[in-house]
């Protein structure tokens, strides 16, 4: 089924900062399939260490001369940048506030105004549970979607959903800030699955290991055109029992990952998770009956590189 969108959806996209979007698209095309990694161990996690790791991952992912140059290309100052966190698992397995703080500070230095940086999750309650404080922060505003969805659903293939207005209307550019963890149905929950949190009815789209639903969601122009960057807090990762926090299934992966490819970070996460599962004598995700097939479907739509074997890892 081909995607269908409403006229209103297209009108809202016409409001995007076009030169910025074009520049960013070109930059993303040049770094297709690439994931930039920077080491960051839990014991070193000071704000300064977090920022350094983030900078190195950004440079590795984009090939830019500096982290600020990377961000300026991806997010011109005219953009309103939404950073979607994945806080479902609470403090144990959510992006660390220090890293999110560092990303917002870098965006500010790259020229994006404080009022144009919005850090959000499904609800203020979830943000608080993960250690964030909704409200005005030094570099950004932190808020929950809290049921502020479009009044009408928008269709993309098998998906028919009301999008958060933050995504459909307010933000012109988006960042997925996720973690590296197992998901009982999708296989992997890293950067892409995080976007289930911006529609009103994610529970409808878990059949078939989320395939083709997750791919169809990513194909919607709100995401396809606006998502410029994925950041993963991989200081600690979880190879089983997700999406909830399962301490016994975590291990110190010790990295921050960045990618401008919509799928590559997830394909990489699949690879590292299978590696850890094999080390523990557990079946791979495919053998456990939940291969992230949606990655291949999304790749078929031309959304990015979904094959773990073809992801290029660049150490920062």
């Amino acid at each position, binding site marked *: 089924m081909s995607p269908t969108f409403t006229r209103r959806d297209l009108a809202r996209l016409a409001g995007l900062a076009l030169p910025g979007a074009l520049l960013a698209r070109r930059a993303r095309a040049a770094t297709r399939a690439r994931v930039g990694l920077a080491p960051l161990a839990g014991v070193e996690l000071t704000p300064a260490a977090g920022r350094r790791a983030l900078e190195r991952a950004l440079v590795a992912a984009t090939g830019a001369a500096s982290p600020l140059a990377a961000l300026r290309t991806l997010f011109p100052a005219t953009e309103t940048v939404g950073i979607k966190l994945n806080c479902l698992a609470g403090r144990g397995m959510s992006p660390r506030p220090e890293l999110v703080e560092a990303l917002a500070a870098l965006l500010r230095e790259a020229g994006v105004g404080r009022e144009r940086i919005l850090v959000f999750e499904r609800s203020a309650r979830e943000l608080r549970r993960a250690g964030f404080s909704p409200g005005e922060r030094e570099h950004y505003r932190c808020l929950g979607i809290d049921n*502020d969805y479009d009044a009408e659903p928008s269709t993309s293939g098998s998906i*028919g959903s009301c999008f958060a207005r933050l995504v459909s209307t307010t933000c012109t550019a988006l960042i997925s800030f996720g973690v590296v963890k197992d998901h009982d*149905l999708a296989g992997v929950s890293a950067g892409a699955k995080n976007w289930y949190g911006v529609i009103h009815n994610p529970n409808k789209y878990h059949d078939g290991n989320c395939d083709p639903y997750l791919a169809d969601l990513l194909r919607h122009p709100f995401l396809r055109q606006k998502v410029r960057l994925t950041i993963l807090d991989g200081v600690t990762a979880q190879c089983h*029992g*997700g999406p909830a926090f399962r301490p016994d299934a975590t291990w110190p992966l010790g990295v921050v990952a960045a990618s401008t490819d919509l799928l590559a970070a997830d394909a990489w996460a699949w690879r590292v998770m299978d590696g850890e599962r094999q080390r523990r004598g557990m079946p791979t995700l495919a053998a456990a009956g939940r291969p992230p097939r949606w990655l291949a479907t999304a790749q078929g739509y031309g959304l990015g590189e979904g094959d773990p074997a073809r992801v290029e890892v660049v150490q920062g």
Partner: protein
Amino acid sequence: MMHRRAFLGAGAACLLSGGAAAGQRSRPPDLHLEGREASWYRKLPDRRVECQLCPRACQVADQERGGCGVRENRRGLYYTLVHSLPCTVHLDPIEKKPFFHVLPGARALSWATAGCNVECKFCQNWEISQFRPEQVASFPMPPETLARQARQAGAPLLSATYSEPVVFWEYVRDTALAARALGVRTTVVSNGYIQEAPLKEVLPHLAAFKVDLKSFREAFYREVLRGELKPVLRALEVIRAAGVWLEIVVLLIPTLNDSEAEVRDLARWVKGHLGAEVPVHFTRFHPTYRLTNLPPTPLATLERAHDAARAEGLAYVYLGNLPGHPAENTLCPGCGEMLIRRAGFAVRENRLRRGACPACGRPIPGVWA
């Protein structure tokens, strides 16, 4: 601007509990969903659970919800989040459900919570059925209060309706029990997509059951609502065998389920498996939700379905969403005498005598007293 979902809920709260006036808030409150343990599920390894309420049989990991969005796994225990938490409560004529053979002209206190176990692309109530409980304005109302409200409003009936009662089945059960103690009877308006055990457990407490039979083709169920036909047909047989009054509604959607062959297959199945005296209502589709690219059902299509079902031997065939149409009336299948004359949801005349035709004396099945 007032959100429509908030308005529905706020309006309902205002109607029955004297709560906040419509327009006071633009979004549902930041509701903490306490939930209570669900009645039909089993535990699986790794803190996972399998829901045993509807045929989807969702296997749900810790912290996740089932497909209906109103049942949540919390550390290996499964919770319903909507027990005693309706999002809408209204007094409706029973004809609106529609039940045409249940206390004609009576009012039913009708209630719903958020959530549904399928996703009909043509859902008229999608603003509550396709949302999670925290996304719509809900308000606490325990079963006893609901039953008392019905009694105080002079309504002899309660009706679980609007969204999908299967997903708030524990609440339906407990309300039916509370209502019975006050002399109020409970009816259910459902898609019939439910497993046998929970259905059989609650049926003895119900007075009538209306099933929306969405189509008589598996492909339609699969493609248009992501459900299955077979379990619905089984549920219809179980309801009928339990002796609970049953009516069936079929929404005819142009080009999708309105062929004469499908209508005849359906009518033959109803006659063969349930009996010719089960009323079948064919109702008119209006474009909505995700199905806005089709026209309303033409009158001729509805009339052709009516005639085909009658020709297959069904005794009570009605047309709905067509106010003033003669096929809203109940005629005696024996002698053709006008028994109940309706206009939309209003009963203009009821000539039944002790549940029988006044002209020929033929008993007319239903819940008449």
